[in-house]
């Protein structure tokens, strides 16, 4: 049969963010896939070099809207390691508390999207309604629903009081019941199981060789989790298990995430009951001596890595972010191969893609391999109206 190429994206109803998936298909079967990035690049790494460490906390937070706490914690941990700061225990516990609440909110959001892609829209609405509970808890703790801004270099910015503790436990109790129901539903509802089982297969050996991360890797039966392998914050003292599944398909990814929700509830209850007393932060100096550091963090989507190089001033010389979604792209191509065109949205959604997280560096080349760099003068020549019209008010 003749092979043809079809583009999915950058703008496509199946995708929530712009990315280009180029499928080579034979009839209805995908034979090869190619992923093109760069539609959502914002130049955050370069911007970070011109801001101080305190300002960068809020910049790194804006790399992602869903795992915002992951990026700040990863950055703050790195800077604390460069400074050799000892963060107070209470601060570490509160950091972990917000991290786990964020994991709940991210997994519930993903579960809703997976249900929506599988054609189960009622489940999508129920999970998103329940997600409001955890969003409200985060707002009570930090003062905002999405960008918590709870981290600072040397600890956390806000403390917990008893009424907040009560609200958290109340919310977790409700979510526990709902998650029990979803576990039951996700594994026994025949239409949902039929849609997700056996789709997007990623065998264990392939998952390891293609460097998949996070729940995608754990769903292929590899018990790998930064929280267990290289404990940061308060994870070395918390009781939790690494959740895995063996079926290597989309259903396994659902099961792993629902299991992780239950582990997160356990951890949050432990943190609230065993919160150490003391300070939440220590004072950090503004200037940081020369050095470099790699910081690892288990974000809801997988392993998040920040590399920070300091040069003795109050600004970093280089910040490199490896978001978990980037690590999962090679595995996604493997999952898509030999699947059907109708499964593309489901398989792609199953890695929990955050495209703007993974967009770091763009080099534009044409088909012959020439670099195409646009200079400032070229932009002025191409868009003369704003340049010539002196009365134009630049939006700043």
């Amino acid at each position: 049969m003749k092979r043809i190429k079809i583009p999915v994206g950058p703008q496509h109803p199946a995708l929530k963010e712009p990315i280009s998936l180029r499928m080579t298909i034979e009839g209805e079967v995908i034979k090869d896939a190619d992923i093109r990035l760069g539609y959502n690049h914002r130049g955050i790494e370069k911007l970070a070099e011109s801001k101080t460490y305190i300002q960068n906390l809020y910049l790194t937070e804006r790399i992602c809207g869903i795992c915002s706490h992951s990026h700040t914690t990863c950055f703050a941990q790195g800077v604390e390691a460069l400074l050799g700061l000892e963060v107070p225990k209470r601060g570490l516990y509160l950091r972990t508390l917000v991290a786990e609440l964020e994991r709940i909110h991210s997994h519930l959001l993903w579960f809703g999207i997976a249900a929506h892609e599988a054609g189960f829209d009622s489940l999508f609405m129920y999970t998103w309604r329940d997600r409001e509970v955890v969003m409200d808890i985060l707002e009570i703790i930090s003062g905002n629903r999405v960008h918590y801004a709870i981290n600072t270099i040397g600890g956390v910015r806000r403390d917990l009081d008893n009424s907040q503790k009560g609200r958290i436990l109340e919310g977790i109790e409700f979510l526990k019941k709902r998650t029990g129901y979803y576990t039951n539903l996700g594994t026994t509802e025949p239409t949902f199981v039929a849609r997700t089982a056996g789709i997007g297969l990623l065998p264990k050996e392939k998952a390891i060789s293609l460097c998949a991360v996070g729940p995608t890797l754990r769903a292929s039966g590899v018990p790998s989790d930064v929280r267990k392998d290289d404990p940061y914050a308060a994870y070395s003292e918390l009781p939790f298990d690494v959740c895995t599944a063996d079926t290597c398909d989309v259903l396994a990814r659902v099961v792993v995430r629902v299991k992780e929700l239950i582990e997160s509830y356990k951890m949050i209850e432990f943190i609230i009951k065993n919160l150490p007393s003391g300070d939440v932060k220590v004072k950090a100096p503004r200037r940081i001596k020369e050095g470099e550091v790699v910081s690892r963090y288990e974000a809801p989507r997988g392993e998040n890595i920040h590399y920070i190089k300091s040069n003795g001033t109050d600004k970093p010389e280089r910040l490199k972010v490896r978001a978990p979604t980037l690590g999962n792209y090679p595995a996604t191509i493997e999952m898509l191969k030999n699947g059907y065109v109708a499964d593309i949205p489901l398989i792609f959604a199953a890695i929990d893609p955050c495209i703007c997280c993974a967009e770091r560096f763009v080099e534009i080349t044409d088909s012959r391999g020439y670099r195409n760099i646009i200079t400032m003068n070229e932009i002025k020549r191409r868009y003369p109206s704003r340049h010539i019209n002196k009365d134009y008010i630049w939006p700043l």
Partner: protein
Amino acid sequence: MRLKPAAFLPELLRHIFKKPATVQYPFEKLSVPGDFRGTPVLKPELCIVCRSCVRDCPAFAIEITELSAEEKRYRMIIHNDRCVHCAQCAESCPTKAITMNNEFEIATDSRLKLKTEYIYTRPKKATQQSTEK
């Protein structure tokens, strides 16, 4: 595990008789928590012009200019259109002159309307305190 057809049906039927989970927003408003990070507000009588808010603001939303050196008059502009509501200014301020209020409905038709300007004289007492430190 055994599959159960229509496992979702009881939940679905129960929800027919429930109230909607959403709030009818413009007519009915949810309250925000006490320490919500809303719009930054300056109390000019407390400001000692140390400029730590200007230095730490990640969005460059605070501007301080000197109007007259002898009278110690200053102008602070808080650009709420650039503000990312992180409350770092409120945390950096040594005299707690900047606080965050509970306002979150700040949408307007022009970003110029979001600018707040404060013209004030630096209090004498506060300067003495700051030099003592």
